[in-house]
């Protein structure tokens, strides 16, 4: 399985949920598979997906899934220590680890060689860390969301991208409809 297959497999699980998605191919592929107002697409800023996701999870109560890549996490590796030391039980960090910088031509990352992001996350103090094969990602994500505790999932998949167009949506439109969904989910939560 490549990232696109993983995204397709988790699409039914993240439908209607708050998703912060990594820059480049991950956001573009998710946009094609499951565009929804509760997706925050990163159009720039390599490395900050997990930070945005954590900030959002700490600020409100609805579950947040941040879909990261191995290259992006390596860019901002210290994020794992911030996440570990400021746990948000409504936060799931899904690192789709294909061992390559997919958006720039599949150059290998160190996560595809000696570096284990799951081990780094554990060493940083993250308590619930799961490494799984791509095929198990949907099951692990479901389990993580049902657990009600912060989970880091490292999904090991193959390198490769699907040829999808760039996202032409205005960034303020992405933000506004995302915030609208955050508010709507928050109100629904308050009523229930």
């Amino acid at each position: 399985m490549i990232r696109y297959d993983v995204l397709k497999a988790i699409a039914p699980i993240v439908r209607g949920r708050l998703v912060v998605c990594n820059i480049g191919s991950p956001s573009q592929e998710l946009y094609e598979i499951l565009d929804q107002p509760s997706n925050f697409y990163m159009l720039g800023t390599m490395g900050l997906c997990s930070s945005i996701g954590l900030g959002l999870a700490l600020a409100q109560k609805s579950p947040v899934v941040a879909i990261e890549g191995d290259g992006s996490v390596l860019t901002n590796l210290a994020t794992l220590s911030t996440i570990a030391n400021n746990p948000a039980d409504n936060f799931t960090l899904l690192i789709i680890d294909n061992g390559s910088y997919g958006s720039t031509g599949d150059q290998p990352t160190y996560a595809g060689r000696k570096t284990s992001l799951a081990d780094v996350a554990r060493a940083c103090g993250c308590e619930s860390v799961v490494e799984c094969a791509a095929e198990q990602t949907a099951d692990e994500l479901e389990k993580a969301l049902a657990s009600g505790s912060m989970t880091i999932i490292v999904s090991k998949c193959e390198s490769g991208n699907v040829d999808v167009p760039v996202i032409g949506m205005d960034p303020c439109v992405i933000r506004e409809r995302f915030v609208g969904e955050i508010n709507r989910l928050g109100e629904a939560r308050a009523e229930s």
Partner: protein
Amino acid sequence: MATLTDRRIVDCLVENGIGFATSVPCKQLAGVIELVENSKSILHVPSNKEDEGMGLCAGAYMGGIRSCIIMQNTALGVVVNSLATLIQFYRIPLPMLISYRGEIGEKVACQVEMALHTKAILNQLHIPAYHFRNVDQLEDLDSIIKHSYMCGKPVAILADAAFWRSAE
């Protein structure tokens, strides 16, 4: 140990509804960071690096909590991309309380190197910058923060060595 000036700064953040702060330490900001950490109104999440802090602030803001970053000017080079492609591109207001190291009164020569670029970087990014040289200028802090939220832009408050020396 926090000063009265530090307290005035943090009170102003709270009065403006800021409920989330991230910081990377600076000696001059130690009192402010201590008060933010102990504030019941502000969730303080320290960052390892300032660009990570920009991400945290963007997320918290979209989650409905006004956020701010407390940092040193030497890190402005680190955050240029985050400011341009996240904070400005998605139009996220962000007050940045910045210790302006390397100005008159600085004791560490190397700090001057980034001081020389500080205003140039902010100007290049079209970020409104307010240079505080004296504690009396604190009376403008409230309107500067309000300005950030009014226009949906980052603003920089540069508090230099003379400002911190004049702290009460």
